[in-house]
């Protein structure tokens, strides 16, 4: 059934679709003259800047917290307490640097967790090998 709300949502979804690297498109990394200003604006939009975007009502829910979510929150706060990162870079990394796909696709604390792992590697507190070895080691404990 056609409705103004549905039309707005479809328009929005069409624009968002353009932001994904569509696998069916012939040209990736297009020539500069193939990106007009409207598309440039769409591509450079921050994925967390969602205020005012059209959407339809959903069922509001409460949620029980997973143990790993609670621990992730504490780890991120304590990393800040001990000076590993500050509020500005946390925000940029968790909300912007993850990109649209992970921003909308991962759980709330999933983004926090991935970002906490990345800060350890990016600031060279651990090497990527140390991180993957640790992940393997922890996995083995549960086998």
């Amino acid at each position: 059934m056609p409705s103004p709300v549905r039309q707005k949502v479809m328009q929005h979804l069409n624009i968002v679709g353009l932001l994904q690297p569509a696998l069916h498109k012939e040209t990736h990394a297009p020539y500069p003259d193939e990106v007009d200003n409207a598309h440039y604006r769409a591509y450079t939009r921050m994925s967390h800047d969602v205020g005012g975007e059209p959407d339809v009502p959903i069922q509001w829910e409460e949620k029980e917290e997973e143990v790993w979510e609670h621990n992730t929150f504490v780890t991120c706060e304590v990393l800040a307490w001990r000076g590993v990162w500050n509020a500005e870079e946390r925000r940029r990394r968790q909300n912007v640097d993850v990109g649209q796909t992970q921003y909308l696709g991962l759980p709330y604390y999933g983004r926090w967790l991935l970002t906490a792992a990345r800060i350890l590697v990016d600031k060279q507190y651990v090497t990527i090998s140390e991180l993957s070895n640790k992940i393997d080691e922890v996995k083995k404990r549960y086998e």
Partner: protein
Amino acid sequence: MAEKHKPAPMVDEVSDFEILEVAVRELAIEKGLFSADDHRRWTEYMNTLGPAPAAHLVAKAWLDPEFKKLAVEDGVKASLEVGIDWINSMPTNFGTPSDYCNLRVLEDTPKLKHVVVCTLCSCYPRPILGQSPEWYRTPNYRRRLVRWPRQVLAEFGLQLPADVEIRVEDSNQKSRFVVLPVRPEGTEGWSEDQLAEIATRDCLIGVALPKPGVTANAKLPVHPAVNPVDHDH
């Protein structure tokens, strides 16, 4: 419902999120970025947080016009009276690590209703109100509240007359907000504790109005955790 016929997940199946969380925490401790004790102390601090101090701030403001003035002028100073020291009472002794110490108290009137959102992320006055509810963090709430506040409030069961102005306050990195609703009728002679009971979390975010006899948030479906935090610890 088809959902119900899905086999339950294996109890001992561990998610990659759980694995990564343990790995990051243990590496940070092994590298000396923080200690296991830091993590434990912060967890204990977290477990003390909840909406009670903000509820008492509202109750006090309802009872004492001088305190209400202070709350609206200087939310951080007013918080001291309900036991919340934004600067010194946290384990850091320098305020929240998320770097915000500016609490604003938004005073409703019979013709003006405030409601709080954080369109860019999920900013919330944690020290005085506890952890934000999941719906507050959803892109859906953040998208729609600023454009269709009246409709969104109605979805929470709050239907406001057309002549009541709605003001949406968008939280940001440095500033956090609680709503000071109008004291409802039928609460004459009530004590601070009685009043605090009806100043629920939802009232302090602004998606509900306090009402005598209503001491809980609107009943919403609860998405259960696979491995839930036991808050009694």
